[in-house]
């Protein structure tokens, strides 16, 4: 059994697998440890598939813009799988003036970061997506946003990394990290002790207990999110959709089925089970929400609803960072439910950080020690 490598990555989601892939591409030997039985079983296979810049916190925009420009366009070709990436824009819809206020503020911040995003009128929205109902009074529109299939993309990174010799172990939960002479060296599991020069913690919320164990405290908590998917429908529209209050988001997949995420409002108070399960009213509540925006979908059949946990950060911003206090420790977590689109870029930049000490994109705002108190 292989227990030593240049780098150990903890977590086999989109972030862990892409990091492992890019490291292996640069000739590094990598071991990936996944706690569950399945690759990509956390948020990576439960999200709404958005690959979007608009609506993000400005701190994440540099990395995301870099990713949309440098990774997503040729990712299918590189991984040898159909990521189903479509760059046909993102409509973030508003139904009230308050919504428009939120969207306008987000738009202004994004424009400052160089993102081509603008507010558009109800008529213009209808021009882009004629299926939307008249409840929409306006939206923010970013033409370079899009969506992709999170399942094939994550498993595509896994397949490619595996081809390059990355050693994946599933059903292998990590118990503890251990430093040797102050440097990150050992990863303890119930069956073996793994050793490496560098360790990347990319295990979603499960990152927290491991990081706390070595004195690195990233303020995040586990919050349930729920999604659903419909039967296949004739192709209608290609944009990614969201709303001002992120109460509803989704897109129509290449297969023709619609994937939507939504809220009942009680996700924060859900009974915390290890395995997230959908609440009984979620599909009904979200269906009502969707039908208000898309009356044409009232007859569309829902075939499945599921839930997942997001690692919600205190400032709702990802943490992609070297840990100065513990040389050799890197972290990629707290993606707060919008980690799919930005995951590959985070993976690429972390691989660069480990091998060259520098990153092509500016990840300075995503440092682990950015958290300041209220006063």
């Amino acid at each position, binding site marked *: 059994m292989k227990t030593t490598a240049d780098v150990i990555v903890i977590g086999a989601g989109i972030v862990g697998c892409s990091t492992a892939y890019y490291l292996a591409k640069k000739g590094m030997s990598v071991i990936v440890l996944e706690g569950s039985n399945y690759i990509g079983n956390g948020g990576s296979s439960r999200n709404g598939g958005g690959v979007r810049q608009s609506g993000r916190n400005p701190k994440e925009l540099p990395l995301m813009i870099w990713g949309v420009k440098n990774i997503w366009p040729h990712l299918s070709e590189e991984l040898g799988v159909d990521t189903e990436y479509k760059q046909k824009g993102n409509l973030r819809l508003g139904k009230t003036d308050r919504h428009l206020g939120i969207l306008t503020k987000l738009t202004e911040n994004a424009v400052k970061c160089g993102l081509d995003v603008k507010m558009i009128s109800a008529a213009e929205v209808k021009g882009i997506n004629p299926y939307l109902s008249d409840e929409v009074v306006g939206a923010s529109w970013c033409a370079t946003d899009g969506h992709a299939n999170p399942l094939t993309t994550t498993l595509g990174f896994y397949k490619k990394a595996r081809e390059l010799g990355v050693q994946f172990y599933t059903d292998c939960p990590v118990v503890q990290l251990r430093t040797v002479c102050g440097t990150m060296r050992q990863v303890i599991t119930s069956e073996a002790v793994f050793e490496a020069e560098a360790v990347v913690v990319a295990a979603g919320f499960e990152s927290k207990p491991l990081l706390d164990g070595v004195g690195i405290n990233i303020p995040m908590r586990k919050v349930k999110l729920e999604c659903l998917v419909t*039967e*296949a*429908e*004739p192709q209608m529209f290609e944009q990614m959709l969201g709303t001002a209050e992120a109460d509803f988001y989704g897109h129509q997949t290449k297969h*023709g089925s619609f994937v939507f995420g939504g809220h009942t409002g009680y996700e924060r108070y859900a009974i915390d089970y290890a395995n997230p399960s959908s609440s009984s009213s979620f599909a009904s509540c979200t269906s009502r929400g969707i039908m208000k925006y898309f009356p044409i979908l009232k*007859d569309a*059949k829902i075939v499945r609803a599921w839930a997942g946990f997001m690692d919600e950060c205190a400032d709702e911003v990802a943490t992609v960072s070297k840990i100065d206090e513990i040389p050799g420790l890197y972290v990629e977590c707290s993606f707060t439910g919008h980690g799919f689109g930005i995951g590959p870029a985070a993976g690429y930049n972390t691989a660069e950080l480990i091998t060259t000490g520098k990153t092509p994109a500016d990840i300075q705002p995503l440092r682990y020690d950015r958290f300041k108190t209220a006063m």
Partner: protein
Amino acid sequence: MQNRIAEHPILGTPQKGRLVSFSFDGKNMEGYEGEPIAAALKAGGIMIHRYTAKQHKPRGIFCAIGRCTDCVMIVDGKPNIRTCVTPLKEGMEVRTQYGCSAKKDDTL
């Protein structure tokens, strides 16, 4: 109606609702109210319910208990209706389904 069992040795004559007419791909057909649409079609000798999206292959009744979804058709404009568990009503409009819609795509 050659596929209907007139008299069964154990069950006797099947009790049926009233005879109603419905349309299948524009043609007029008859069946008994309340029996599954698939049964009325089968009695009328119709075997093909749909053509699949990818390989455009014909599909029909397979499990007849509403589980396998192979028998789905467009009923009164709504696609993916499981005809083996949907009761027949007067004047229903049943159409062969191509992929997930009624449009017979040219690639067939």
